[in-house]
């Protein structure tokens, strides 16, 4: 039985949240739905961890759905690359559970709460599906599942602006998804297979055709849209700003990261690094876009008056960091990009959670509204400070590890210009994080202090926020396991010694 469970984990990690979603709907009670969410996400996290270990030992875990042998059936493949992203997704989801209870309750009517949890589970199932699947079309379907549920989740935000934000995201996301569909169709047309490993085998024969080239272009643009890479990023700030706080934290930490995962899964595993970066000039385009993202995102972030929007813009900038690492297509670069993908997920998750806790308290998220909260909510504010430091890349935090890795990789690849821009971007990040910290600690509480009577945020929100912060610090001081795993993943993607 136990071995059976272990063998089935690759599919169970998707199925558990997928089936928990209708259970939430059936349960129809906010508390029961929440409980189901927590159990499912924790179970998923546990399985993700076991899968990570398994992938580490075996190199790759493969699973044939319906016992149809690949490449005919749908294959689930978990290697270190996907296992790491899987760990991030399920980890953040698991932490969001305790957080979401109070946060959701404060922003969404009680009779609709169960739906939030059902949708979050669906979204989670979709995101997990993307990471574990070894089938190109299946990836599209999971991507759309996660996207659709996140549109609906964002639309549940307390302000009416959430509606248009969600609609814009829906349009952009659907176009991105359809582009991906076109791209997959084009390469399917040329090879007759959808299995990624099989595609990788068969594509070299037809590399020279226009169809495959166009297919790559469509896939890259489609997934860039989902990953909010410049210039396809404008849907992101609004979507993250107006979503309910718990949803902001969850989606900001996972959705775009998984899209980047999928992008480079296609680019590296399916098309091959030699083709995408050698024959075709994808690397330089992505690097340029990444550089623009870093600077423009940081600049826009500095000017924001709303903290959630500020963080969202900084996400645009940080996506630039991540893509810059991957776009180097060197083992060091890919590993740095992957490390930053994970670390940034943790950082942004923590920051959005901290801000969400403040929003829970003051019911507003502009910088002015957070004035003086350092005294009223010392723990939450401290969490924000640590998260902010990690975002800047201060030593002993996770952000530093990835910044260091990125700088080293850029230096090795002799992209000094991008290196300098990364430095500038991190200076800019000091300014936008500094603005918030100053408001928290060095401005007086506003006169109408009625809402400050109650003090700190609820325990669940605290625990969740601090868990992510703690992980940040642990990675900051003891990064070796993460770096080793990332190096293994990079080696499997672009070759080279792990």
């Amino acid at each position, binding site marked *: 039985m136990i071995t059976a469970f272990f063998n089935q984990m690759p599919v169970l990690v998707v199925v558990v949240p997928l089936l928990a979603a209708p259970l939430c709907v059936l349960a129809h009670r906010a508390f029961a739905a929440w409980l189901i969410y927590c159990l499912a996400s924790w179970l998923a996290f546990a399985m993700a961890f076991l899968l990570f270990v398994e992938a580490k030992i075996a190199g790759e875990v493969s699973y044939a759905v319906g016992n149809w042998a690949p490449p005919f059936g749908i294959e689930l493949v978990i290697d270190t690359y996907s296992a790491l992203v899987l760990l991030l997704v399920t980890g953040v989801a698991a932490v969001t559970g305790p957080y979401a209870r109070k946060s959701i309750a404060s922003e969404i009517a009680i009779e609709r709460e169960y739906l939030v949890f059902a949708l979050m589970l669906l979204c989670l199932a979709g995101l997990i599906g993307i990471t574990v699947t070894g089938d190109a079309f299946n990836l599209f379907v999971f991507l759309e599942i996660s996207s*659709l549920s996140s549109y609906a989740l964002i639309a549940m935000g307390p302000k009416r602006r959430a509606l248009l934000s969600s609609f814009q995201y829906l349009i952009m996301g659907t176009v991105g998804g359809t582009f991906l569909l076109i791209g997959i*169709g084009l390469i399917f047309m040329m090879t007759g297979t959808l299995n990624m490993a099989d595609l990788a085998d068969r594509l070299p024969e037809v590399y020279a055709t226009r169809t495959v080239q166009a297919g790559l272009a469509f896939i890259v643009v489609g997934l860039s849209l989902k990953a909010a890479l410049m210039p396809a990023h404008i849907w992101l700030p609004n979507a993250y700003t107006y979503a309910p706080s718990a949803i902001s934290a969850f989606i900001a930490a996972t959705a775009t990261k998984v899209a980047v995962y999928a992008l480079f899964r296609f680019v590296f595993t399916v098309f091959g690094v030699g083709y995408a970066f050698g024959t075709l000039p994808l690397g330089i385009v992505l690097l340029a876009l990444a550089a623009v993202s870093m600077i423009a995102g940081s600049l826009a972030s500095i000017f924001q008056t709303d903290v959630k929007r500020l963080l969202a813009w900084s996400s645009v900038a940080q996506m630039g960091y991540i893509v810059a690492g991957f776009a180097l297509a060197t083992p060091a670069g890919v590993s740095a990009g992957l490390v930053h993908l994970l670390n940034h997920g943790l950082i942004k998750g923590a920051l959005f959670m901290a801000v969400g806790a403040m929003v829970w308290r003051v019911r507003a998220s502009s910088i002015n509204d957070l004035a003086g909260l350092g005294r009223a909510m010392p723990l939450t504010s401290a969490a924000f400070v640590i998260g902010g430091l990690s975002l800047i890349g201060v030593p002993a935090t996770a952000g530093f590890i990835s910044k260091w890795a990125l700088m080293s990789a850029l230096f090795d690849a002799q992209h000094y210009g991008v290196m300098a821009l990364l430095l500038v971007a991190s200076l800019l990040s000091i300014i936008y994080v500094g603005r918030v910290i100053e408001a928290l600690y060095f401005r007086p509480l506003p006169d109408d202090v009625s809402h400050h009577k109650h003090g700190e945020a609820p325990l669940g929100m605290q625990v969740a926020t601090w868990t992510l912060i703690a992980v940040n610090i642990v990675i900051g001081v003891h990064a070796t396991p993460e770096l080793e795993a990332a190096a293994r993943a990079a080696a499997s993607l672009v070759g080279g010694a792990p």
Partner: protein
Amino acid sequence: MNQFLTETLPGLFNYWIVIGLMMIGFYTVIAHDNLVKKLIGLTVFQSAVFILYISMGFIHGSTAPIIIDGDPVYAHPLPQVLILTAIVVGVSTTALGLALIVRINEAYGSIEEDDVLAADMATSEGEEAREEARSEQAEAAEGHAATGADDGAEAHESRPA
């Protein structure tokens, strides 16, 4: 050239239809402010992709992939199955989009994107005004500091509270 006109061009007519539909749909999404029209455009765009898939699995003279007696040529069933799924996704998207439009209409009284954005902009200006007031105050303090080495004493308050 002649061959291109007589054979290649009409021979690929399905792709021309796909491309035409795709462009119509995409243009509608880009050019129209009306959210419903955008959604319609999106649906047309998606349909074009569905047709692309279906037509690429089609073989001349083939039948539908149903098991019947004899040995007929079947069309490739896989694209059809895939597209069935994609259609489901598309329908969900449309339904969700329409639901959002209904609520946008209720919240803003308009389904023109620029009107809604303008309404948003108007609400955000109030928030901004407060922030601007503060930064102006700060600039004033800075300006004061820059005018002479001996700036005002107010900046030197210390607060050993």
